[in-house]
């Protein structure tokens, strides 16, 4: 049972922006509602007005250019998992999407909604940050794009302005020889540790530095400093150990039912090694 609210179905971005401005904090943007409605049911949040953006045609599209994928704000995890463009250009993202929550959440929940909610125990942010993805926002003053790592500012907090809505997520496509890996540790309903790794490996060595982003364990996803690993031997256990050490140092895990700070930090190291080992293995 939900407390009473009104749903306002809008058919254009302009209408959505107007509604946002009109209702202020009394309204939330609603697409799949998988996070929103649950939060309302649990009593942790309350919005007397929901702005339903699913009828805005532009928001449902998944398009691609040579360099980037654009995922519309109302594209669901289910859509993204199955989309031919995504499958062709960024199969690692399709795989990640296929493993978000459960099939029913995937069927209705949107990637944009996932980012907008700012849930710390989430899969997508770490990979999107590793890829350099940007969130495209539109408000009264026009359009702007914000890097995902700047968009999610804290637990359940984003840089979304009071009159803005998410329009799309732009994901630059990595070059052909860049491998993308995502591994996660999950024992409860949400992931406890997620590690996204990107890198090019040639003749067993990293070309440049690998990108490693650790998510789901801290209040926000954390990029791991990896500059010192440029050109390192990607198959050497010592390299992987060192990257793992850097990852462990880069996060401040939140203790919860899935584990203590100590255990989670250890898991961060383990999964960082596994993600990076996957890069090397993919390349060969």
């Amino acid at each position, binding site marked *: *049972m939900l407390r*009473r609210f009104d749903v306002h179905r809008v058919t254009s971005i302009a209408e959505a922006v107007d509604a946002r401005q009109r209702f202020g904090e009394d309204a939330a943007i609603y697409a799949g509602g998988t996070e929103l409605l649950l939060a309302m*049911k649990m009593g942790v949040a309350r919005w007397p007005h929901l702005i339903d953006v699913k009828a805005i045609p532009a928001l449902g599209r998944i398009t691609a250019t040579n360099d980037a994928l654009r995922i519309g704000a109302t594209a669901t995890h289910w859509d993204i998992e199955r989309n031919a463009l995504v499958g062709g250009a960024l199969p690692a993202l399709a795989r990640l999407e296929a493993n978000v929550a*459960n*099939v029913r959440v995937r069927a209705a929940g949107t990637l944009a909604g996932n980012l907008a909610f700012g849930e710390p125990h989430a899969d997508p942010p770490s990979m999107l940050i590793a890829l350099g993805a940007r969130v495209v926002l539109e408000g009264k003053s026009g359009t702007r794009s914000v890097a995902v790592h700047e968009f999610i500012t804290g637990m359940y907090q984003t840089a979304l302005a009071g009159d803005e809505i998410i329009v799309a997520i732009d994901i630059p496509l990595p070059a052909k020889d860049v491998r993308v890996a995502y591994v996660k540790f999950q024992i409860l309903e949400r992931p406890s540790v997620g590690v996204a790794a990107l890198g090019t490996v040639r003749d067993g060595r990293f070309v440049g530095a690998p990108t490693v982003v650790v998510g789901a364990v801290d209040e926000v996803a954390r990029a791991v400093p990896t500059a010192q690993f440029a050109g390192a031997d990607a198959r050497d256990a010592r390299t992987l150990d060192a990257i793992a050490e850097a990852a462990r140092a880069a996060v401040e895990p939140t203790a919860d039912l899935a584990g203590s700070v100590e255990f989670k930090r250890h898991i961060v190291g383990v999964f960082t090694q596994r993600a990076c080992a996957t890069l090397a293995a993919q390349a060969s």
Partner: protein
Amino acid sequence: MGGREIHLRVNGGERRVVIEDQTLLIELVRSLGLVGTKLSCDSQVCGACTVLLDGRPVSSCTTLAIEADDKPVVTIEGLADGAKLHPLQEAFIERFAFQCGYCTPGMIVSAKALLDAYPEPDVATVRHWMDGNICRCTGYQTIVEAVLDAAEQMRGAP
């Protein structure tokens, strides 16, 4: 605001109903006497409330009823063709893939969506898809077998 009228298309039937914006799909469905769909966890994780909305499995406990406006909804009551059971229902009986039966409607509806998407699933695909449905009675193995049996039956049927 007062009520909102929607065009409900459930299990092949059509009717107009007046609901409120915050009415949940499970509340609507059960209020119409379709009580096969069950409420358990009320937080999207157990799958007992699974219905098909426009062909996709959704948690009716966390889906607004207004989303069903002019979209086909399938509940467990819509699977059998009169007295003729759906192959999944036959398989669940044959394989003893239920005990208390409370998770069963959601389980079967979820499996139907699986077989619609993957007519030839392997064990891993079945387990992955169905992982969002909880059963506390059976230990799951007989459910996997029932789904695979039904898949085979549906492929083989003329």
